[in-house]
């Protein structure tokens, strides 16, 4: 009985409700939900990638167009495909150069069609495609962004070389890899 009398009272009731504090907390939650909604809306609109962009240019009798991702994410298949058009086709084949470093962010599966010859020249990779009667040469690069790559901007240039071995037409491109 004595021990019972010595027990210390420890009330379990919570503190009285602080209405202004609750209202502030609710406002904070609403701001968070609104921010989350905006974030998801941007995601639904493809803002965080994969966002495909095109670049094209003409010169030296060639028309060059490139589809590439301006924004992508690690692990995702990322487009990179170009078309070269020339009236009369390519009886002597066609040679293109591309910035080698751009492909450092990719896990590559291959280039289709495969070039007849591939060489590296310093910062550039050189692809030579064989003769074709068609006015258009379409080449696509099958690749995914490497899982470990993030918050990186990969950029490069794609050129078609003219008969004199100099770039006849060039397009620039850049891909931002989201975290």
């Amino acid at each position, binding site marked *: 009985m004595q021990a019972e009398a010595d027990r210390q009272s420890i009330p379990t009731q919570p503190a009285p409700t602080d209405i202004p504090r609750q209202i502030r907390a609710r406002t904070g939650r609403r701001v968070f939900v609104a921010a*989350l909604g905006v974030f998801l809306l941007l995601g639904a609109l493809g803002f965080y990638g994969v966002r495909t962009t095109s670049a094209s240019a003409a010169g030296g009798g060639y028309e060059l167009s490139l589809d590439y991702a301006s924004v992508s994410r*690690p692990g995702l298949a990322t487009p990179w495909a170009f078309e070269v058009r020339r009236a009369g086709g390519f009886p002597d084949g066609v040679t293109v150069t591309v910035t080698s470093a751009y492909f450092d962010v990719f896990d590559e599966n291959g280039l289709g069609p495969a070039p007849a010859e591939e060489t590296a020249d310093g910062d550039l990779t050189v692809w030579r495609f064989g003769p074709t009667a068609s006015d258009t040469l379409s080449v696509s690069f099958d690749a995914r962004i490497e899982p470990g790559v993030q918050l990186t901007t990969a950029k490069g240039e794609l050129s078609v070389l003219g008969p004199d071995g100099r770039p006849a037409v060039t397009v620039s491109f850049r891909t931002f890899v989201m975290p």
Partner: protein
Amino acid sequence: MEIILRSTIIYFFLWAVARGVGKRELSEMTAFELILLVVMGDLIQQGATQEDMSMTGAVLAVGTLAMWILVFAYLSWRFRRLRPVMEGVPVVVIHNGEPLDEVLAIERLTLQEILEAARNQGITDLAEVDIGVLEPDGKFSFLQSSGRSDQQGSPEKHTG
């Protein structure tokens, strides 16, 4: 966009599963069911994010699930008629100290489970209980003759 759609489909599927398995299973978790839950989580992750290994993808998937949770909570609060569909309804399993056998059978509850839930609340005899309720979340509430009300957590699983 894809990841948001996939996460949305998975949310609705999981909601249907949670509503479909019944209240009792919601609150019980055997070791095997715990393992199944972990496996389900892994499978769901693959379905939602697939090969997307980015933080952005993970945040989009989790954010989508969180948004649907908020939407369901709001709809349930705003539209009373939706509440039984979205959250389920409480079910009386004991009335005036008598277990309702038909209700127990429908909810796949055994008398042993009711007795254990009652014991956990210090109830020595079901005759003390005016009303025993299986709540939508699978927990039991006992309203006693004295006016004292108890709610207990997950009941242990019994056979028989």
